[in-house]
């Protein structure tokens, strides 16, 4: 089937929904969301715990409830969507090729595309855990899908590697579902999860959190029989003599998320080696005109509220592009990040306005550091933070005056002063 569309949104999770809604609200009627899953909402459907929506709605919602709010809004605005539809490629000229059981092959000529493809989990292969290959080794998100969506148990006695929020949430889930979680291991000397999740997911159930520990071996033929763990040194290498065998039938890996960008790559979108997502300007537009990126496909967020907010800006930018009222930025400046600032999104800016937040992450945890933004070497923004950690994305919104200074500058730098 051949179609022409003003805007194709790839992905119907929180980012895709918010982007499509915003585009529609900004006058683009001919929008379609293509979602590979059987329903809209993406990963939120399996995130049955609460903690979503505190910023966006001022109340604490579960994942399905948060998704439901956006689905209802999309329905009200009559946003067109196809589920069970897999986008195979987006070409440089914005031709979207997709397949679905119902519609067969779809070739959609789009005028603009929003990439909202989300992210995927790092697996055992990504971190090279040696040993046998028995059943019982899951990524935390896969286990979450089995338990919350299908209603299957994954095991009786589990070890979890990785203390990010997904690992912590799954520790509680397994305990509630009747399994025993022996311990949560964390390679780093600090947890990347939220303090509240350590409190309500681990401490509530007396699950030990072993910092500076990792899994160095997997044993078992058919089913996992146990893992060998070890303490690591400050170079994160296992310390000989600290090995311990922990009997378990389940190992959950919560070892990081990677933006999913095969489609973006195929279209020729430039990716950042640090975020794994597209390099974008302040309109969330990639190096290809009319192709926008948002959500976890752009950079992994910690809060879905920020995803929705960012995606809405991508949808709005796409609408502005389609309406032809996008101001042409003559030149883009790359934001330089250094001294403890790992990255900044957007990576380049033409004209910054106060509505556009800068998102960034720090490299290591620190207390009492100052975030500094320079325009041509002069400090234009300064904020002391009691506590900064790599797991918490920082958001900075700048005043009219600061934006003006940055827009006039030739060089913009974001850094941390840890003194």
């Amino acid at each position, binding site marked *: 089937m051949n179609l022409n569309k003003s805007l194709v949104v790839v992905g119907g999770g929180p980012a895709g929904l918010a982007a499509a809604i915003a585009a529609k609200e900004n006058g683009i009627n001919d929008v379609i969301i293509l979602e590979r899953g059987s329903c809209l909402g993406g990963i939120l*459907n399996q995130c049955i715990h609460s903690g979503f929506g*505190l910023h966006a709605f001022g109340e*604490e919602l579960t994942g399905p409830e948060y998704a439901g709010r956006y689905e209802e809004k999309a329905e009200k605005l009559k946003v067109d969507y196809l589920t069970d539809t897999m986008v195979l490629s987006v070409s440089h000229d914005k031709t979207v090729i997709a397949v679905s059981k119902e519609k067969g092959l779809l070739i959609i000529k789009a005028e603009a595309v929003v990439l909202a493809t989300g992210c995927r989990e790092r697996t055992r292969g990504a971190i090279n855990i040696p040993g046998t290959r028995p059943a019982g080794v899951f990524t935390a998100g896969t286990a979450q899908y089995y338990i919350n969506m299908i209603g299957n148990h994954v095991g009786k006695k589990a070890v979890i590697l990785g203390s990010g929020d997904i690992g912590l949430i799954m520790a509680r889930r397994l305990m509630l579902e009747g399994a025993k979680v022996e311990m949560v291991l964390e390679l780093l000397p600090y947890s990347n999860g939220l303090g509240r999740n350590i409190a309500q997911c681990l401490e509530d159930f007396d699950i030990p959190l072993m910092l500076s520990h990792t899994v160095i071996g997997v044993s078992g033929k058919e089913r996992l029989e146990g893992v060998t763990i070890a303490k690591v040194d400050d170079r994160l290498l296992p310390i000989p003599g600290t090995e311990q065998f922990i009997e378990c039938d389940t190992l959950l890996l919560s070892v990081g998320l990677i933006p999913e960008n095969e489609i973006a790559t195929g279209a020729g979108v430039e990716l950042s080696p640090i975020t794994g997502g597209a390099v974008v300007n302040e309109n969330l537009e990639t190096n290809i005109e009319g192709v926008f990126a948002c959500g976890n496909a752009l950079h992994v967020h910690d809060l879905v509220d920020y995803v929705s907010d960012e995606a809405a800006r991508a949808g709005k930018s796409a609408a502005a592009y389609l309406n032809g009222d996008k101001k042409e930025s003559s030149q883009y400046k790359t934001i330089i990040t250094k001294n403890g600032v790992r990255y900044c999104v957007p990576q380049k800016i033409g004209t910054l306005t106060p509505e556009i937040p800068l998102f960034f992450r720090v490299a290591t945890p620190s207390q009492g550091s100052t975030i500094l933004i320079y325009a041509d070497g002069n400090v234009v923004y300064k904020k002391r933070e009691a506590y900064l950690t790599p797991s918490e994305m920082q958001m900075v919104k700048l005043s009219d005056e600061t934006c003006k200074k940055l827009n006039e500058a030739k060089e913009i730098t974001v850094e941390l002063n840890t003194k």
Partner: protein
Amino acid sequence: MNEKMMTCIVCPRGCRMKVTFEGDKMLSCTGNFCKRGADYARAEIAFPVRVLTSTVTINSYEVPRLPVKTSAPIPKDKLFEAMEKLKTLKVSVPVKHSDIIFSDFISKGVNLISCRSVNS
């Protein structure tokens, strides 16, 4: 007087709070950014409660499990009892989000509510 460090679970900020208490009565709370932190600490000392989220069986073509939550926090020491009770529940379609699945669930006045709409 006892002293305890506590992480507030009310919002993602997760304030680290120093709480002093006598028996089940809170005497002081410091380190909290907002009032909700002190309220949480007071409750945590006297009578800890948690919102429970889980899933129940549903006779649907669309999804095998229906996500549910308690409309208000229930006693922390009754979480496992609540999970057992969830296993006995079966929901029939159609169900809308915020529908009451079970009234007076574990605690009086607390309802078990649906987190999702399922039509068929």
